[in-house]
């Protein structure tokens, strides 16, 4: 395909158009991804998450610059939520990254969640693959750490960084949020604010309670992203985690698991669409609903019948 050839020859326009094809599910999207797949698997993927206002975009901007200093090219997928009311979105991550626009070694793509059930992680994952095939060394996925689909996205990364800031409530908030468990490293941003030491201790204590961290203890870095302070140490920590994953053989496991999850999601998606089209959106199904409502039949055997037909 022409667009794939152009993308592999470093056409930024082709990369952008290919991501659009995937995002909007254009007819050629599957063909693009099929042709691109052999060229993927080379980039190192970093997921960044945390609460709104933690400074993820600013930090991403600074990390990208630090990686550029170290000679790496950087792709960024910045995800912001779609309004459930209008279906529109304001994608504001790029505002922190505008001075990256002059650098050919960086490509930033904004994506809206569009309320898609699980579909987002697949689309973001495809955007990562396209940037990977284009030749980006490092790819950063940045998203607000609320909601399952957002967490799913960052979980697909090789290294996941959780960004927190002081003054967001007591330690119970941190525990119930459920995003702290997924961090391979922690960054306390806005670390010139009051409460930084306390937050540091709380994260330490939480890590003590987590038995999963055998072999790798998530480091806690402090940054003031707006001033560019502490950024080198964060990149050093990411690189240390990468080295750990490679040496321990875990990078292989993570990537195997990622493929498994991706294919599972693709299968689920395909089956869901099939059921929606062939079962749910039919007159026959509407008739069944009426019968269930009047209690002529019950849903359990209806489901059995349908599954029997679909999975024949």
């Amino acid at each position: 395909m022409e667009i794939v050839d152009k993308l592999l020859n470093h056409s930024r326009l082709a990369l952008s158009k290919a991501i659009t094809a995937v995002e909007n599910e254009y007819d050629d999207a599957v063909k693009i991804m099929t042709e691109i797949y052999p060229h993927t698997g080379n980039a190192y993927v970093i997921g960044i998450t945390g609460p709104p206002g933690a400074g993820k975009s600013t930090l991403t901007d600074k990390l990208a610059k630090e990686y550029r200093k170290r000679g790496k090219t950087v792709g960024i997928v910045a995800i912001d939520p779609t309004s459930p009311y209008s279906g529109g979105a304001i994608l504001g991550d790029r505002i922190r990254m505008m001075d990256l626009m002059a650098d050919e070694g960086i490509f930033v793509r904004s994506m809206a969640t569009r309320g898609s059930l699980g579909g987002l992680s697949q689309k973001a994952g495809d955007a990562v693959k396209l940037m990977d095939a284009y030749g980006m060394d490092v790819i950063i996925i940045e998203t607000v750490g609320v909601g399952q689909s957002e967490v799913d996205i960052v979980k697909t990364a090789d290294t996941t960084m959780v960004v927190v800031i002081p003054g967001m409530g007591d330690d119970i908030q941190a525990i119930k949020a459920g995003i702290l468990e997924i961090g391979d490293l922690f960054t306390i941003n806005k670390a010139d604010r009051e409460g930084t030491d306390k937050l540091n201790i709380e994260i330490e204590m939480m890590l003590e309670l987590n038995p999963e961290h055998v072999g790798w203890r998530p480091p806690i870095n402090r940054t003031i992203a707006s001033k560019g302070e502490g950024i080198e140490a964060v990149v050093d920590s990411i690189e240390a985690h990468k080295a750990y994953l490679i040496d321990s053989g875990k990078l292989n496991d993570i990537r195997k698991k990622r493929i498994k999850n991706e294919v599972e999601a693709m299968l689920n998606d395909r089956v869901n669409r099939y059921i929606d089209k062939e079962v749910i959106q039919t007159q026959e199904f509407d008739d069944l609903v009426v019968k269930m409502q009047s209690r002529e039949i019950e849903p359990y055997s209806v489901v059995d019948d349908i599954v029997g037909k679909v999975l024949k």
Partner: protein
Amino acid sequence: MANIKVLVAKPGLDGHDRGAKVVARALRDAGFEVIYTGIRLTPEQIAEAALQDDVQVVALSLLSGAHNTLFPKVVELLKEKGLNDVLVIGGGVIPDADIPGLKAAGIAEVFTPGTPTSKIVECINANVK
């Protein structure tokens, strides 16, 4: 599921972003995906952001009087980057006398103070497939 994507940007040395933010909000409420890029940008930054996000619309806001230079420059750079189908619209305190020149330079529509935001939404819906 193809949503219309609009880049809202303020080129040049002008920090007055109230209008751009009101427009960004109105476009979001109309169901568009709005990439808000902020103030004091060069035409190059705007064109590159438009390329990377593959937007259908670039909405420029400018109140400093430099629109005759900066708006056409954005159009020119978009074309240079191969973005030939992007709808470029502009707004701000722009004298009526300048509007024909801007339109000739490729700015599809110019919205001056007092324009209801619904007019901008209509313009986008009418011009983007």
